[in-house]
């Protein structure tokens, strides 16, 4: 267990007020306020085997054939190799009938990695408790993807789920590990839609809805201490089946126990749509 500060939405809008914003490349322009932070206990659940079915997240051993994971999102051939691996992993772990990737791998770095971040968009870890999508943006993403796949009609499936597959690409210890919230402890009424606005360099802006949260002492926060690049944390970001874990809120946090001078954490994530009839 570790005690650390995490950040919830502290200014949820009242009825009729505009949706809060989170500007990924210039957080000072965000209307969302997440101060002051909240000290919480984050349990190391390594060894307790959380599952996608129960908590909404699961740790999976996987060694990638990609020799240098930092080369992802920059080498199209490696991205494809990694994509095929993760598609196969998700099929195996979930038993889904079909899995489609939602874009390629995305690298993220702690804020101190300025030289790395300079060449990437939306690549800092999000420092607020969030779910990757709202109901609206989940449907937008799933239908957008389905519109690119021949003969794929979501209505022909009984269940569709969006997943995030997250892997550190630097060895432990990590200064900014990922904390995940047991989906069973999340009350829908504590979700606050937040419009993330991210810069597409050289083009414009891209907006998508995420779920922020207000603080809730019932949230059970978990992490896997010392994750290695040979481990993938798979978690649900939207499940159309109301009897299943709906969404795992998550946030990067600063581990107060990480030795000073440790190189900042880097990670790679990939999102996918899984389907069942």
């Amino acid at each position, binding site marked *: 267990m570790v005690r650390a500060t995490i950040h919830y939405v502290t200014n949820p809008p009242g009825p009729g007020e505009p949706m809060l914003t989170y500007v990924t490349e210039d957080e000072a322009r965000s209307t969302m306020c997440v101060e002051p932070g909240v000290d919480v206990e984050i349990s190391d659940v390594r060894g307790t085997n959380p599952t996608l079915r129960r908590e909404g997240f699961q740790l999976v051993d996987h060694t990638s054939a990609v020799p240098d994971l930092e080369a992802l999102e920059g080498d*199209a051939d490696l991205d494809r190799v990694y994509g095929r691996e993760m598609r196969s992993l998700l099929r195996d772990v979930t038993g889904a009938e079909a899995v489609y*990737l*939602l874009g*390629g791998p995305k690298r993220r770095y702690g804020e101190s990695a300025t030289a790395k971040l300079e060449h990437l968009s939306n690549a800092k870890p999000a420092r607020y408790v969030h779910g990757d999508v709202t109901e609206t943006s989940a449907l937008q993403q799933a239908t957008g993807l389905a519109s690119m*796949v021949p003969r794929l009609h979501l209505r022909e499936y009984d269940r569709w789920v969006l997943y995030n597959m997250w892997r550190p690409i630097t060895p432990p210890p990590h200064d900014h590990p990922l904390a995940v919230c047991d989906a069973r402890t999340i009350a829908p009424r504590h979700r606050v839609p937040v419009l993330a606005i991210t810069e597409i360099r050289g083009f414009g802006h891209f907006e998508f809805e995420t779920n922020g949260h207000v603080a809730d002492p019932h949230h059970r926060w978990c992490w896997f201490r010392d994750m290695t690049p040979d481990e993938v944390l798979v978690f649900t970001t939207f499940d159309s089946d109301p009897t299943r874990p709906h969404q795992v809120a998550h946030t990067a946090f600063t581990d107060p126990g990480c030795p000073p001078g440790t190189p900042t954490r880097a990670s790679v994530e990939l999102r996918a749509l899984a389907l069942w009839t």
Partner: protein
Amino acid sequence: MNGSVTGTNEPATPPRPSTTGPARRVAVVGASSGLGRSIALGLSARGDHVALLARRRDRLDRAVDQASGHAIAIECDVTDEVHCAAAIAAAATELGGLDALVYSSGVIAIEPLATTSAATWTRLFATNVVGAATATRAALPHLRATHGRAIYLSSVSAQSGVWPLLGAYTATKAALDKMIDTWRDEHPELGFTRLIVGDSAGGPGESATQLGADASVDLLLTGLDTWQRRGLRSHGLVDPDDLVSAVAYVLGSTASIPVIAVTPPPAPMHGAPSGG
């Protein structure tokens, strides 16, 4: 390096007779996934003898396993001139000649021009344009021997409108189109055809184009949203079976067809009579 060959000479199910005469010998380049795979399997099912050429051996073998007619797999890297020429030669040898070349290899990048690197430009041109030139050059003597046909998959995005975030890709397809027209002019004894493909993401299952891996989720969704808002996207996707029919039509025609297009069906009209 020589292209290596495997194949099924005993089809899983009897092939349907060709609708346009005797079996044609066709090399499909870029046949391990996407539209190339759909075309290769479709021609094979129609009774043509098909060589499937692509880089990825495992996927080629799986495609050949699914072919209902005569099909062989030959590894081919179109960005390696020597390897590509050897693979085309191997296809001609294995099939006993070559009546047609179908070039469907293509890579895409979804990215603003402001961040598109020289490496990305080079990668796209290497496969989409130079690879097509290399494969054609290698196939030329075989096609001349049969008065054969060459068909290239081009894109509607190079024909109409401006597609932001696809600048490098559409430039390669426009270059490909110009190159095909020149081949056609320099070799009137052969048939060179541009097959313009509308909105498409390949065929079902393994034939689906691996588009997901080619952009970050942000760029992919930005692209989809932008193209939709600008009215560039069609109501649906090209049916891969229609594409097979178009290729078969060109191959079976005595006329040399410069351009043929396959686009998705139009959106249904509001208020259209529902019958009676």
